Structure formats: structure tokens, C-alpha cells
């Protein structure tokens, strides 16, 4: 209920802002909604959203998989942590734009370079979060698995990953929002399609309505993923907590 009131308030403020700033600077909510519907009817909206979403998912999966593996290793093996820590600091502090520009310079304006640029941007935060999780693993459960001679993969799946779940969820949550923002910049700078590319065109034409239409449509997609995919997975993973609460 409170969420609906909050949303209603946002729309009212938007209307007032639009009235003060003028339609060209800040088009009213209905104008943007009409633009979304027009783009949707032509099929353009879904195509561009699909392309961006595909890039988001590939880059996100890549960064999360590699980041989790490296984070787990760094958290468990002191030598790997000592070796990788300074690299991690460099990656964490390298501006996203620098990574994107370098990726395009070295790899050309290609899909691979674009995806890698996004994944590398997300990688260090995934590593840091999962490393913290790996450091918090319970050594008593580790010892139990060893005494009972549980195979490594079985231990990883049933003992390590469930303990890492909150950290993986945190890395995933922050990752999804970070990745889609970076994908838009990557598309703006060097791809011939996607929401970022469309926003770039709209920027050149000073078409604020189109910018807002694409941005809002993509926010809705991300919200849908959050509600329909991320939250159910989290609920499932923390079922035992609910039972014991």
C-alpha cells in the first residue's frame, strides 16, 4: 500500500516538474507512456530491450561465475589472496569508462570486447563480496566433511555454496543493477543496437521523451527479473531460515 502511495507521489512530482520545466525538458508521464507504447507496437522496443538484456545476462553470468571462483579461492587460500590482492585494488579503482575504452581499443568495436568490458567492471566487486563469504565459512563444517570423506564437489555443493548464499545473493543484487548501467554506456560508445545505442541517438536529437521511454522500459524489465527470478530464488534458498525463525 505504502509502495503505491510512494509511486503515486512520484508521478505527481513528475507532472509538477514537467509543468515547470516544460514538455521538451521533462515530458509528462503520459507522453513518455505513449512513446513507450508506440515503440512497443513497432517492435523496436522489444528488439532493443532484448539485445541489451542478452548482453546484461551474458556479462553478469560471466562476471559472477569467474568472480565467485576467484573470490572463493582468495578467501580460502592465503597465497592466492596475497598474489591477487593488489590486482584487485587496481581493478576496483579503475574507472568503468577506462576499461570500456581500452576494451574497444584492444578488441575493436566487437560484441566480445563489449561483453568483456562489462564483465571486467563487475568482476572486482563480485570477488570482494564472495571473498568475505569464503572467509566466514565455518571450519567446523569443513572438518566434518573431511572426517566423513565427502568428495570435494559434494562438499562444495552442499556445504560451501549454501554458506556463501547470502554473499552470492548480495553480489548478484548489486551486480545486476551495476551491469545494466554499464551495458548502456558500452552500447552508447560502440554498439549499433541496444537501449544504450537508442539513448545515444535520442541524445543527439535532444529527444528527452525517447530517452525516458527506453530507460523506464528497461527499469521495468529489471524489476520484473528481480520480482520473478531473484526473489523466488532467495526465498527458496532461505526456506530453512523461515522454518526455524
Amino acid at each position, binding site marked *: 500500500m505504502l509502495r503505491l502511495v510512494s509511486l503515486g507521489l512520484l508521478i505527481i512530482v513528475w507532472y509538477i516538474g514537467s509543468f515547470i520545466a516544460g514538455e521538451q525538458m521533462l515530458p509528462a508521464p503520459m507522453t513518455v507512456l505513449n512513446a513507450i507504447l508506440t515503440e512497443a507496437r513497432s517492435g523496436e522496443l522489444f528488439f532493443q530491450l532484448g539485445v541489451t538484456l542478452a548482453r546484461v545476462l551474458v556479462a553478469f553470468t560471466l562476471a559472477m561465475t569467474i568472480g565467485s571462483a576467484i573470490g572463493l579461492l582468495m578467501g580460502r587460500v592465503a597465497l592466492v589472496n596475497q598474489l591477487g590482492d593488489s590486482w584487485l585494488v587496481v581493478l576496483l579503482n579503475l574507472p568503468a569508462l577506462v576499461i570500456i575504452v581500452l576494451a574497444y581499443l584492444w578488441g575493436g568495436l566487437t560484441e566480445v570486447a563489449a561483453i568483456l568490458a562489462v564483465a571486467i567492471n563487475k568482476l572486482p566487486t563480485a570477488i570482494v563480496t564472495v571473498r568475505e563469504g569464503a572467509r566466514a565459512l565455518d571450519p*567446523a*563444517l569443513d*572438518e*566434518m566433511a*573431511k*572426517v*566423513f*570423506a*565427502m568428495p570435494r564437489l*559434494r562438499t562444495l555443493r*552442499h*556445504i560451501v555454496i*549454501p554458506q556463501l548464499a547470502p554473499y552470492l545473493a548480495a553480489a548478484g543484487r548489486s551486480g545486476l543493477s551495476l551491469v545494466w548501467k554499464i551495458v548502456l554506456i558500452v552500447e552508447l560508445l560502440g554498439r549499433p543496437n541496444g537501449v544504450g545505442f537508442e539513448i545515444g541517438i535520442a541524445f543527439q536529437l535532444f529527444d528527452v521523451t525517447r530517452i525516458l521511454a527506453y530507460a523506464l522500459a528497461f527499469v521495468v524489465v529489471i524489476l520484473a527479473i528481480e520480482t520473478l527470478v531473484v526473489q523466488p530464488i532467495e526465498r527458496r534458498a532461505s526456506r*530453512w*531460515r523461515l*522454518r*526455524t525463525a
Partner: protein
Amino acid sequence: MNDARRAGGSELLDVRIVRKAYAAATGQPLEVLRDIAFTLARGELGVLVGPSGCGKTTMLRIIAGSDADYDGKVVAPARGRLAMVFQEPRLLPWRTVEDNVRLVAPSVSESALVTLFDVLELTQHRLHYPGELSLGLARRVAVARAFAVEPELLLLDEPFVSLDDALASKLRDELSVLVESRAVTTLLVTHDLDEAVRLADRLFLLSARPAQVLAEVSIRVPRGRRTDAELSVAKAAVVGHLRGPLDPAIKA
């Protein structure tokens, strides 16, 4: 350096630890075990009794293969042929009772599981999560898990500590039934002399740190038929080996 190899013959467990020390925070080595030597034959139940903090858990960890940094030699069944009940139940909170047991014993048959849960009165808790169980029940699950792997050697690290007397006594009886029926070689660690004389075939009395075996007492009367008088005699025999008054850390 140690020399661990696998056991064979009638002796299932052969422990010879010359020295085990930890590096203390001061940088000085902290000696925990010194000149420990004992064996257990197949099917025997040995009890190590000694004051809290004397290094009993360290010894079990060495036998279980979790700690290889010691001088000496331990001959024990290979990993996968031994099981351990830790001081804390060490269950996975995200798996049900049944799944906790099946995780370490994937090939356990349904009928074996039913029998185990029946003896340990866990049948109605099969689908419960550890967070829904009392400490006594969680300990039972840990015992069920250890028996489910059908070990040659079972290590028990103070499994009844911090339970009330009635519950501890009930669990002791259940454990006794399981050990008897499966003829599994068992090594139990406790600081409770009363518990030790009730369960042991052979009892090893340990000194304070660094732990050494002060005495070895064999109790011939079968576990289920020990009268209070016989238990008192056994206790007196153990206490008689102590030079001074009974160490206050050992609960007589």
C-alpha cells in the same frame, strides 16, 4: 614427523603419539600430548578420560586425520571407514535431519535408516531442520549420521556434554545398544569418570596437559550388566592410579 598407515590384523587402532605441540601466542611451543600409546582391538570400546583441556579432542582429531602435525604414528582405518561425533552436533542447518544423514551416507538403505531413527527416537523428526531441534535431539542426529556410514571406527568427542543427567543417561543407553549391535570399534572421550566406567571395555586415564596415559583399566563385566557396586569398584581402581587426590577437573 608422523607416520600414519592403515590398520590391519586384530588391532584396529594403534596410537603412538610421541609429542604434539601448538605454537602459542607467545611464540613458545605449547605441548599438548606426550608419549601417548594405546591400542584398540576390533569391537572394543575404549574411553579416554581426563580433565577438560588436557588434549583429548586434539588426540581424536589426530586419529581422525584432521591434524597431521605431530610426532609419532597412528594406525587407523582410512577415511570413509571412520566416523566422528563432535562436541557440537555440526549439522547443516539448511538440510533436514534425514538429508543431513544421507549427505555423508548417500548409499544408506531406507531400512537401515528406519532402524537407526527408531533406536534414536528420531522417526518423527526426519523432516525437521536442525534449528527446530533441541540440543539433545541434534546430538542424536549426529550419532545417527555417524552410524549411517557403517564405520569400522567410531570417534566420540564428549557427545553428552551439557545435557541434563536424565537425557545423557538415556543417550548413553541408546549409544550402548548401537555399539553392541553393530560391534563397531569405538573411542569415546569424556571428562566424566562415571560415564567412562559405564561404557568402557578399556579405560585410559589421562593426566593434565601435556596429556599422558596415567593408567589403563580393563572392565570385563558386559556393559548392560554392570551393577552400581561394580561401577564403584571400577571407579576406585581408576582413582587408585592417581597419585594425589582426584583432579578436580575430572568429574567423579
